[in-house]
């Protein structure tokens, strides 16, 4: 009952004219970011973090969550019309979405995208409201040992699942963890890897690093390839249909549950939510031979899964301070910038904020529905703007976004340096998401490891014998061993 009262209070607080304007404007910006290939939800949130620094925490998070939800939704447009997913999360929906467009049913595909996204997001909001307090209560029992394994597991899982090569993903995760160690250490304020530079003493800023990894690196990736002519034809009715919800309610519920579960897993993200939901729908569907050829059920599953993963990814960010995806990592960093400390104590110290986030995600979902109903056709002009025009403008925004948080020219150099390194590594198959998770979780891993060892006086046993720490340690070790051929052979023999 307390929770419902807090939620009602939060919803009432979002009914002001400015809040509605922020929500609609930010969702629209998010949709445009999602539509533009090369611009990701992570970059959108990172850039908007800069612009929202002077807002109140709730207004700032309102803007950022709306950009997040809008971007994941908007990316399906590009996938349907151009066969290029606007964001990685829309790759699964592109399979059937573009097939429907080739059959002259692009509008129908967009309607399904709206239905699936809204249904998935609503399901996710319900889980966000109910699971966050439960998880936070469990996490109150966590000590340094559990936080060490949880944060390390986030980096390892992100490395295993976000790229195609776990070894490269883990190396990127370690690089991110190391990047977070630059500057003053969190326990003794001792300088690490500063080489006498006063700029490095302050550490590598998360936002400049993120803008470099997801902005500059992506701009270089996009600009390195010749543009292809956009073929956008007239589309049929784009309105979502209630009949689709009634017909595919089982798929929606299953995909919503899978999306939320994948979202909660540390560092995995929306794209895996979409692919897992798509795979499950294909397995259980009587029309599985239609998947990939324009299946409405397949498209519904993918879009429900990726949007349900958004609130799912916010759950551990709020309750454990371990984000479920790269965009949620930036969102969590933005909360910290605004003086909100996510983690188990958030539910104790600022329970209203948790329900603010639930209400904000609900409002973002409603805004997405509004734009899905009225702005589909006008938004298609965005696809006609040549990327040669968009990318230089985005680069100027990236430069300003990196600089504006602290007004330091050094942050522009960080953005450039991280961007070039990530560009080179991405071209060799090294994924960027584990690097970002590593930067966000580096401080927790470092402090938890040293605090745990101090508490146990150097004894490693509690890292493995405490019940939750033991389970997390086993999962983390198995995550790595499962990729070692010799270990896999042993597991197969045991099975």
């Amino acid at each position: 009952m307390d929770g419902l009262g807090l939620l009602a209070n939060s919803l009432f607080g979002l009914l002001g004219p400015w809040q509605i304007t922020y929500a609609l404007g930010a969702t629209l910006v998010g949709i445009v970011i999602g539509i533009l290939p090369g611009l990701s939800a992570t970059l959108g949130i990172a850039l908007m973090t800069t612009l929202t620094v002077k807002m109140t925490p709730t207004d700032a998070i309102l803007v950022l969550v709306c950009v997040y939800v809008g971007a994941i939704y908007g990316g399906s447009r590009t996938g349907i019309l151009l066969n290029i997913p606007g964001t990685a999360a829309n790759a699964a929906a592109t399979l059937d979405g573009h097939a429907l467009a080739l059959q002259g049913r692009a509008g129908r595909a967009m309607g399904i995208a709206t239905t699936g996204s809204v249904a998935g997001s609503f399901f996710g909001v319900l889980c966000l409201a109910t699971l966050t307090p439960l998880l936070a209560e469990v996490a109150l029992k966590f000590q340094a040992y559990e936080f060490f394994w949880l944060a390390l597991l986030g980096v390892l899982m992100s490395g295993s699942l976000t790229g195609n090569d776990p070894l490269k993903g883990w190396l990127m995760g370690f690089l991110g963890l190391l990047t977070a160690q630059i500057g003053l250490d969190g326990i003794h304020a001792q300088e690490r890897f500063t080489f006498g530079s006063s700029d490095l003493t302050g550490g590598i800023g998360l936002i400049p690093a993120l803008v470099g990894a997801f902005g500059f690196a992506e701009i270089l990736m996009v600009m390195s390839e010749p543009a292809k002519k956009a073929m956008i034809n007239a589309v049929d009715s784009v309105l979502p249909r209630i009949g689709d919800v009634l017909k595919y309610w089982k798929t929606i519920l299953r995909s919503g549950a899978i999306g939320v579960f994948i979202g909660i897993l540390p560092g995995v993200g929306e794209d895996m939510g979409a692919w897992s939901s798509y795979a499950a729908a294909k397995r259980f569907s009587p029309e599985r031979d239609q998947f990939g050829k324009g299946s409405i059920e397949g498209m519904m599953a993918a879009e429900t899964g990726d949007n349900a993963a958004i609130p799912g990814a916010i759950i551990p960010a709020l309750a454990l301070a371990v984000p479920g995806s790269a965009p949620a990592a930036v969102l969590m960093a933005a909360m910290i910038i605004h003086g909100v400390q996510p983690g188990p104590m958030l539910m104790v110290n600022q329970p209203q904020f948790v329900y603010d986030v639930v209400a904000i995600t609900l409002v973002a979902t409603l805004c997405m529905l509004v734009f899905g109903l009225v702005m589909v056709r006008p938004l298609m002009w965005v696809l006609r703007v040549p990327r040669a025009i968009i990318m230089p403008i985005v680069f100027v925004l990236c430069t300003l976004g990196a600089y504006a948080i602290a007004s330091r020219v050094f942050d522009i150099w960080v953005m450039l340096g991280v961007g070039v390194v990530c560009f080179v590594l991405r071209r060799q198959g090294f994924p960027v998401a584990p690097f970002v998770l590593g930067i966000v979780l580096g401080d927790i891993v470092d402090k938890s490891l040293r605090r745990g060892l101090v508490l146990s006086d150097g004894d490693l046993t509690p890292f493995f014998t405490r019940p939750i720490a033991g389970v997390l340690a086993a999962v983390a070790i198995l995550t790595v061993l499962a990729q070692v051929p010799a270990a896999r052979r042993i597991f197969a023999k045991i099975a």
Partner: protein
Amino acid sequence: MKLGSDRFFGAGWIAFGAAVLALSWRMDRLEGLHINPWSVPGLLPGLLGALMVLFGAALYLRTPAPDPVGKPEAGASGGRIWLALVLCVGYAAGLLGRGLPFWLTSAGFMFVAILVFRWLDRDAEDPSSMGRIALGSAVIALAASAATSLLFQEVFLVRLP
């Protein structure tokens, strides 16, 4: 090609990890402050350096994956990459903060970048004369520069570089 690049990058990770390990080992252990030895600042960086050496060695030694997923996209051109790199780094590291007004520097960068890449991508656009492309690029660059300058300077009160 994949094997070669994995070996090259594997060797790079080994060298980088070894350097991190060495720097962590030499990091001040604050013995003079009588801190708990398990809380030395170089502990995690040293472990990460060791893990990079280990995993870098695995990357160096392993058989290449059959699916070259990390391969650059077909059509990616070295010339375009260098052009984008020179323009972006030249603007952000070479011009910004050197005394020129932000709006002028940004407008100049956007004009050149938009013009050059629209010309390179001219096959993907509707046919248009070079003069029209140049005029359009100049208008867009000036408008975008003015909008971003005003937004950040006047609305968000950022002192522009």
